[in-house]
């Protein structure tokens, strides 16, 4: 295999694994931010219910 083909192959190998890990990382970040939002909303609603119960 000629040196140019070897370098091109390595470049595409890098692109492939980078893309795979970026997609997985992006998905994890979406999950984390959504989880935070849900937890905050749950906490807010629970305190609202507690306030209503007191009054």
């Amino acid at each position, binding site marked *: 295999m000629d040196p140019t083909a070897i370098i091109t192959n*390595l470049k595409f190998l890098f692109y492939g694994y980078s*893309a795979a890990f970026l*997609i*997985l990382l992006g998905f*994890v970040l979406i999950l984390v931010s959504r989880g935070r939002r849900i937890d905050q909303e*749950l906490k807010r609603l629970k305190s609202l219910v507690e306030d*209503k119960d007191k009054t």
Partner: protein
Amino acid sequence: MREKLIYALGILGTLVMIYNLHTIFLDLPDEAMQGAVYRILFIHVPAVLNAFTFLTVALCTSVAFLSTKKFIYDSISVACIEVATAFMLVNLVTGSIWGRNQWGIWWTWDLRLTSMLICFLLYLGYLLMRPAIAEPTQRATMSAFIGIFAFADVPLVIMAIRLPNVRTQHPGPVLETGGMDPSFNAPFGLGMLALFLIGSALVLVRLHQETSRREIDSIRRELHAV
């Protein structure tokens, strides 16, 4: 307990992945025809096999929801389908990058690739449809039907390179025909295991979110009723 299990699965999966990447990049020799780029196989194939595993679980839980009407099955379905969709995207993108290097094109409309893209789009449609239905029982029932319907494409994707008289650009099956070098078996198996562990951790995270979301819905209904 649940959080500990998520962390354990995630950390174990990451460690297996790191060990496996070390083997793939530093121990395995280049392939004679493709050179170094064949190593994409070790993420491309495990991603789709794990996606199909989670989709099979989602199929079972969709059927279970329709027969029992228990919401936990709907939560498991959506959690599995969301993780599987991310894995299918990994499969499509890595396949496209490998194809550009080996075939000289990013995409071709042959049966294997097209059926995989349709599968991805069907499940993406499932995920986009859910927020559009506000009523929980109706949403879960509709989702279960779509989950079962969408799964019909999975056997087609698997069979696409095995059907007679089908000309496809995609390489033929190598796992069951013994066409893969025996030295690739261990990294391939570890790649499967790593993504399965990471995927399971993500499914558990998503499942917890779905449970919290149901709790939010019920509190909102309670507040409206008062």
